[in-house]
């Protein structure tokens, strides 16, 4: 295999390189779109997955870092830095035409940094109201509450959108547009709705019962975690990870801890690694059980919901004994875990593993095997493998489209290289496949736990050399883990201080909600609910 740098230099001679956690390629804004096309379509490169889009304000300049991986080549992840030419009116060419996932990602960057993406089809804010003054993650943002009071009126002109179109001469012009046409019958689903699994709002234009278009309106529980993190010390930032995807609290926190440990070069004791891995898998089981319950519930099978909860309750009991909490677990810390496992831990986990196979059988009997459930889920919400890759749909939903994307296999962390398990894949590309992937992943997770539970070594639970005051050296790091719903990524940029300069969380659910429009078109309103349930997004993870 040839060196990636030589290929890139051939394609884009003006690119500069910077070694680090990942290879950082800096390209001028003017050449970015052409270079991006090359990255994706050049058979030598083949970077077809856009893992993360991170906006950063470097004070003297403002820009975006793109993290890219490939499904066809064995490249390591690379990052591309693009800096806007004008800091006051920043503009960067969109790549949403190449990687569809960039559509929402760039809207988020626009929302927080005011970077306008040229040729982006729908340049609205993503989280904040359209009458919000300023772009909060810019370092020169004015946080004066008088500028953005709590508004008592409805958002006006929520149908208006704009697109910055570049003509042949290179002039950029704003072209206003509308999200829905005059004649569209738009049904508002959410933000207060029983089946959006949180405060999510979909605006669906329907024709009879058929969905024609879905517009995602997000941000109802946006807490500005990334902004908050910039004012906190590293150990403090950990607490927010539990509150994003609360069904992957352990994995998310694990990811942030790993990212900080990587930056510090800190070793984690063997015992802590065992505990972390087991906890991650328990969390995954509890998440998939909830997902099973909610899918059943959204289909109207309320009884199956309770069956799922019955077993999930036992996982939460285990968490409660060890972590002291059932939801916001606060367990992983930098260098290890917060507290040692409860003396009953091993016994309880064994008891849980013993009942699980019979329970799964029961679920299949009650719900998966039911003819109505199968009719409702099969051939609904089709998402091809190409689309899954293009929209970066990771996790069980992506694996339901037969895309092998399991981080635990691709880049093993913790103890995943020492245990034996299968990556679950289904090739139905529909809601039923996604559902089945989850059910089968419960079995795999049980298998992983069973291999580890009796071998937990004695020793420290936290590296005693962990510094009291954690300061990261200047630099940037990106770390991924396999959370319950897909690949969760953390980006940290440090200027050497005790607070992160920029912290970005790449949540899997953000991408999941991006395919709602694609998946729901041509299906019925009732299917919109089941597609959402089978994609299994958690709203706080989208909103952060």
């Amino acid at each position, binding site marked *: 295999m040839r060196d990636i740098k030589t290929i890139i230099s051939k394609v884009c001679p003006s690119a500069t390189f910077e070694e680090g956690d990942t290879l950082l390629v800096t390209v001028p804004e003017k050449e970015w779109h052409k270079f991006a096309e090359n990255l994706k379509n050049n058979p030598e490169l083949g970077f077809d997955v856009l893992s993360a889009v991170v906006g950063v304000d470097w004070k003297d300049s403002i820009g975006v870092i793109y993290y890219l991986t490939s499904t066809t080549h064995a490249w390591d992840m690379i990052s591309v830095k693009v800096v806007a030419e004008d800091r006051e009116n920043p503009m960067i060419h969109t790549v949403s035409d190449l990687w569809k996932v960039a559509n929402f990602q760039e809207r988020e960057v626009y929302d927080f940094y005011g970077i306008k993406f040229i040729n982006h089809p729908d340049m609205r804010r993503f989280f904040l109201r359209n009458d919000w003054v300023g772009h909060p993650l810019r370092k020169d943002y004015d946080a004066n509450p008088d500028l953005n009071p709590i508004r008592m009126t409805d958002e006006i002109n929520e149908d208006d959108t704009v697109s910055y179109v570049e003509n042949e001469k290179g002039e950029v012009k704003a072209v206003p547009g509308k999200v829905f046409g005059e004649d569209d*019958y738009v*049904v*508002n689903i959410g933000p207060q*709705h*029983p*089946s959006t699994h949180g405060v999510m709002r979909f605006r669906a234009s329907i024709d009879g*019962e058929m969905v024609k278009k879905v517009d995602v309106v997000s941000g109802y529980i946006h807490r500005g975690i990334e902004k908050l993190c910039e004012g906190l010390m590293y150990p403090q930032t950990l607490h927010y990870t539990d509150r994003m995807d609360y069904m992957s609290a352990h994995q998310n926190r694990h990811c942030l801890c790993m990212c900080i440990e990587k930056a510090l070069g800190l070793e984690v004791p063997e015992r802590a690694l065992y505990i972390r891995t087991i906890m991650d898998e328990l969390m995954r089981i509890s998440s998939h059980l909830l997902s099973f319950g909610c899918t*059943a*519930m*959204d*289909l*109207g*099978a*309320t*009884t*199956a919901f*309770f*069956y799922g909860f*019955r077993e999930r309750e036992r996982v939460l009991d285990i968490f409660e004994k060890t972590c002291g909490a059932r939801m916001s677990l606060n367990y992983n810390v930098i260098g290890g875990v917060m507290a040692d496992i409860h003396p009953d831990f091993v016994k309880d986990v064994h008891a849980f593993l013993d009942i699980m196979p019979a329970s799964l059988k029961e679920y299949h009997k*009650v*719900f998966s095997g*039911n003819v*109505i*459930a199968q*009719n*409702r889920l099969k051939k609904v919400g089709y998402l091809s493998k190409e689309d899954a890759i293009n929209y970066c749909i990771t996790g069980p939903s992506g694996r339901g489209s037969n895309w092998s994307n399991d981080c635990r296999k691709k880049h093993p962390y913790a103890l995943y290289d020492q245990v034996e398990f299968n990556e679950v894949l289904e090739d139905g590309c529909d809601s039923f496949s996604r559902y089945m992937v989850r059910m089968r992943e419960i079995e795999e997770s049980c298998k992983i736990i069973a291999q580890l539970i009796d071998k937990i070594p004695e020793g420290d639970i936290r590296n005693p050399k962990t510094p009291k005051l954690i300061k990261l050296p200047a630099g940037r790091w990106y770390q991924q883990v396999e959370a319950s719903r897909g690949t969760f990524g953390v980006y940290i940029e440090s200027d050497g201080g005790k607070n992160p300069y920029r912290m970005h969380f790449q949540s899997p659910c953000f991408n999941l909600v991006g395919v709602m429009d694609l998946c729901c078109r041509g299906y*019925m*309103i*009732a*299917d*919109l*609910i089941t597609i959402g349930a089978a994609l299994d997004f958690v709203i706080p993870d989208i909103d952060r």
Partner: protein
Amino acid sequence: MFDFGVWTSAINDFLVGLFHNPQYDWLVTLIECVIIGVLVLLTYTVLALFYILYERKLCAWFQCRLGPMRVGKWGLLQVFADMFKILIKELISLKNTDKFLFKLAPYIVITSSVTMLACLPWGRGLQIINFNIGIFFVLAVSSVGVLGILLAGWASNNKYTLIGAMRSGAQMISYEISLGLAILTIVLLAGTMNINELVLAQEDGWFIFKGHIPAIIAFLIYVVAATAETNRGPFDLPEAEHELTAGYHTEYSGIHFGFFYLAEYLNLFIVSGIASLMFLGGWMPLHIAGWEQFNAVMDYIPSIVWFVLKAFFISYIIIWFKWTFPRVRIDQMLAFEWKYLMPLSLVNIVVMAVLVAYNWHF
């Protein structure tokens, strides 16, 4: 078997005797009508309360729960508390709704439901209206209920309620066909539409046993169609709380919502009652030919108990459906009716006709 007609005629005789004059017959009729009206409404309320508790307890047991346990022994008084709460709740008046139709809708629903209740044969001699087209009348009245639901959905001026109402209209009109055909199958077998005669014809064996396989098929079709007709799971699309929040009654509050709620539970009882009338002998006890002592014991149980227990049993099956099956989708539901259920009932009715024509039934 005890004839409740003894009581009713005793009351009639007493009232007639009270006035001693035939010119006051209208007053006698009026008083009797008022008594019956009060009785029907009372029965309606008590049954509704019982059904709410019945379903809540059954649902809880299906779901590994206990259900209401705090108010009264085993939560028996919970429903009274709930009903009292619904009675004292505010009737919220909404802007931009058709106020007249909005308020009218729950009354239409509840009226059709009460009228159907009045037609049921409760026991030997315990029947309010008995006329030659009894079962046909019940079917006709049941169709009026859907009008109330459509009005509720339309008058609320809400997209969810409108979709719910449209679904409801499509569903009830479709499944009424199968329901009617299933009943017609039994009418063919009995040769009468008079409710009293229908029951009496089952003295020597319930229709489900007398009518061979077509009667059993008709029974199954009836149970499925009745589930759809009462908007219950897996056919609860008009409400479909996970899609349409609460479907056609989203905007209702207080007792107006309570009317929909009561009517829904009572319709469950009514369709179960009709099932027991058409297939399980109404208030007729279970008789097995030759087992004289057994039959005597069965006769000892009052007819009203027979009827109510049979209805509760059918309701149990329908409640069981709801708490087991996921909800079907509108296209699947309509396809199921028009492509499978209705052709099947049509074939079934022909088979039954042949059976009756050649006198092959028992």
